[in-house]
């Protein structure tokens, strides 16, 4: 299984790398967008500000290459900002466009901005929780102040996990071959490791 971790110059790349490596795999750090189609699994890590991250992703042609992978056999996991790029529009530090897989916008949790930093209970779809082998309410680590707000009710059907922090925060979404998490599985101790195992075994 070829696992790629997209390196776009922002993010805790090695945290994700180490988590996957410690599961017994040899992930490859991918810096060139033209190569992403050569993998079975792709992970887009995320610690960063949206505008800056999107600029680099665009500059390096990752946005287009990722769009081309919608509906393909490659399973893709986006973490935090790496997940937020699945949306239509992001609003942190200015407006930027995502890959538009979800009819959703990334907006602040509240104004003035507040931050959700720490561990939250995520209420998971029962079937998915059973596949991950964790309880349907399980703790994960969050560190964000923007969240995904769906523009259409239909998108709610693609949401398989919610956390509550002032609002309902979509925390696990799945659409086509894309899976996105608002939390950081690479830093969520035992639950995070189980989640990453689940992703690596997931066929869309």
């Amino acid at each position: 299984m070829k696992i790629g971790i997209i390196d776009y110059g922002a993010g805790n790349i090695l945290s994700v790398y180490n988590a996957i490596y410690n599961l017994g795999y040899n992930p490859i750090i991918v810096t060139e967008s033209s190569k992403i189609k050569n993998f079975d699994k792709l992970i887009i890590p995320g610690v960063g500000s949206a505008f800056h991250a999107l600029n680099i992703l665009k500059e390096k042609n990752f946005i287009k290459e990722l769009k081309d992978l919608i509906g393909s056999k490659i399973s893709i996991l986006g973490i935090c900002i790496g997940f937020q790029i699945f949306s239509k529009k992001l609003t942190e530090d200015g407006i930027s466009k995502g890959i538009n897989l979800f009819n959703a916008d990334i907006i602040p949790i509240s104004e003035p901005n507040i931050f959700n930093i720490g561990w939250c209970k995520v209420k998971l779809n029962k079937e998915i929780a059973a596949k991950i082998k964790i309880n349907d309410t399980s703790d994960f680590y969050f560190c964000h102040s923007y969240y995904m707000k769906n523009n259409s009710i239909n998108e709610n059907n693609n949401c398989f996990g919610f956390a509550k922090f002032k609002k309902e925060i979509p925390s696990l979404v799945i659409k086509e071959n894309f899976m996105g998490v608002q939390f950081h599985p690479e830093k969520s101790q035992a639950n995070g490791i189980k989640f990453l195992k689940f992703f690596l075994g997931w066929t869309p």
Partner: protein
Amino acid sequence: MDYIRIIPSLLLLNKKLVKGVCFKNFKNAGSPLSTITAFDSQGADEILIMDIDTYLDKKKEPDYEIIKKISEISSTPITFGGGIRNIEIAKKIIRLGIEKIYLNRIVFENKNIVTQLIKYLGGQALVIGINLIKIQGKYRIYEDKENKIDVLKHIIDIQNIEIGEIKITFVDREGKKCGLDLKFCKYIMNYIRVSSIFEGGIGSLDQLEDAFKEKIGAIALGTMLTFNDYNIVKIKRHLHNKGFNVRL
């Protein structure tokens, strides 16, 4: 966040952990890697590491080698502080697997850097440290030797630049096991709308309970974890039994 947080606070000096009293008289406190492995398996909510080599030698960059090793063994979120003087250093640290960076001195020397870091990393990745020291009954900022900065104004000002978290440290209580200054914590919490962490003085379970009773959301522990028989499992079980919302 649904839970209160217990955060081990570790000081790194020449590749070893140390612990002192009131930021002085550092004693060897063991190996960083084995200590972090232990806190990770005990379910620490986060881990905070300060590289104090960079405080003693202002030109020194953080110890990247040890950061890399820490990141390899920890599945707990890590905040790293010390020697982060520019964006390149900050990016390098985050890339090595650190989730948040802790800034202190640079905030006074070059506020511009904080704004720039937010542009690259986002406010959620920044923890701003405020070290307090009580002089003649009044709190001052430890680094502000000329007493020019008003503590409350500073707290309000830095929140206006969209940082995610503030860490308040009571320097003159640190390592003394006398508890936090809860009266002052309560007072400043009225002005803090971002996430906050408090440290300095906690040495017993009772003091920890008292602090959480005042609705403090996160506490960093140094001495209590380093030189005592407490571990995070024990502490969290105790708090859980007392009805606090801790993650077990």
